[in-house]
């Protein structure tokens, strides 16, 4: 009776790497060593995590804050830094209005303070640098994609990489001065004044394109929009990975 399991319409997207269960289960102390402003609402936080086991671009971690009475708040954050052996990691956080964790980091935390992290988590959105990467992000959704771009540069990878990043204005564009020819910013409230559309992405699909692995990250509304554009352009659904920030 035990026939082999075949989902009716298979497009389960396989994970990209094996994940260390031990790293995911252990809280580590992370000491804030630097805060860099990226935009009026967004800053990058650099932490020393001496025992960090390394990560792949695209992975995230869980960050935990504990109050004196033992109360805790924990949230997921993508790793902005590429894999390296510096013993440091970087997170880039949007300052969410009334946000418990992002509000604390933006307004109270200062260099020398310690928080706790566990990770890296989830191999699904990871990009090991092997396949052509078509990266599409909006707002702070560009964070894990920037880790991929940095990795690509650092290792001087030859595999094609294209980044489309949507922001309201040039001032709101995170890492705005760090993009090169690989990146197309799409500004929704300035210059072009429109949302990411098929014509932005279409040049990536001339002659079918190089066989992209697509990574989409941002709010749910953006992820729905961008993933539909990709499907319309012929990107196979089992080659679209989506990270929704909720």
């Amino acid at each position, binding site marked *: 009776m035990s026939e082999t399991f075949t989902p009716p319409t298979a497009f389960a997207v396989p994970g990209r790497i094996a994940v260390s269960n031990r790293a995911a*289960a252990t809280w580590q102390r992370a000491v804030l060593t630097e805060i860099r402003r990226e935009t009026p609402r967004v800053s990058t936080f650099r932490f020393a995590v001496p025992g960090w086991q390394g990560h792949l671009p695209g992975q995230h971690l869980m960050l935990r804050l504990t109050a004196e009475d033992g109360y805790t708040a924990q949230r997921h954050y993508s790793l902005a830094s590429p894999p390296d052996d510096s013993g440091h990691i970087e997170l880039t956080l949007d300052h969410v209005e009334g946000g418990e964790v992002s509000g604390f980091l933006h307004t109270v935390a200062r260099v020398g303070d310690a928080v706790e992290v566990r990770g890296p988590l989830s191999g699904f959105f990871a990009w090991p640098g092997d396949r052509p990467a078509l990266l599409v992000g909006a707002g702070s959704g560009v964070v894990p994609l920037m880790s991929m771009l940095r990795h690509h540069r650092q290792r001087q990878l030859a595999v094609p990489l294209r980044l489309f990043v949507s922001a309201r204005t040039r001032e709101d564009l995170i890492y705005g001065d760090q993009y090169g020819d690989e990146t197309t910013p799409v500004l929704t409230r300035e210059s072009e004044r429109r949302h990411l559309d098929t014509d932005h992405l279409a040049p990536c699909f001339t002659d079918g394109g190089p066989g992209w692995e697509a990574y989409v990250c941002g709010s749910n509304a953006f992820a729905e929009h961008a993933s539909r554009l990709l499907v319309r352009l012929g990107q196979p659904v089992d080659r679209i990975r989506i990270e*929704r920030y909720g």
Partner: protein
Amino acid sequence: MTGGHPTRGFVGRPRTHNPGLPPGQYDARDDWPVLSAEVTPELAPDDWTFRVDGLVAEPRTWTWDEARALPGSSYEGDIHCVTTWSKFGVRFGGVSLDVFLDAARPDPAATHVVAYSHTGYTTNLPLADVTGGKAWVAFTYEDAPLPAEHGGPARLLVPHLYFWKSAKWLAGLRLLDHDEPGFWEQNGYHARGNPWEEQRYAGD
């Protein structure tokens, strides 16, 4: 949860004593975040089917109309997502999984199930977690059709476990005599996912 080391200056939100909130979770109030990692499929009720197979006496497939004609029941209560939000007092309507399983008659050797989606998403659960009035095939949310991004036309609902176990766009349930990790479980997530024991990741 083993409490962490205090972070200088962190006070946090006012503590509201909420016995319904599992450790490490917060109340998302009116928000219902969407966190699926796949493209939302366009799945019409007419194209939707639900199958129970594997270690059962009678493998069966229900169409939308057949499933909707079964005796309905609803869940009113809370849901908990591994990304740390919980949502209180939600209402789902559907059919208890017991109704489907009773029709398919599980083999006594069956101990686990793999729930699978029309997208190919999978998640594993102990059989005991989806029997005895604890799990549903849900068709409605707050008395309206379940939106596609939340798994419509039909999703699994296992509200006492983290919500990644409640597979969206549910296509079937396969009964097994062993545990077999699903999509997130192969990506480092916990095999059972009990929010009250904070079983988020393998090893928790």
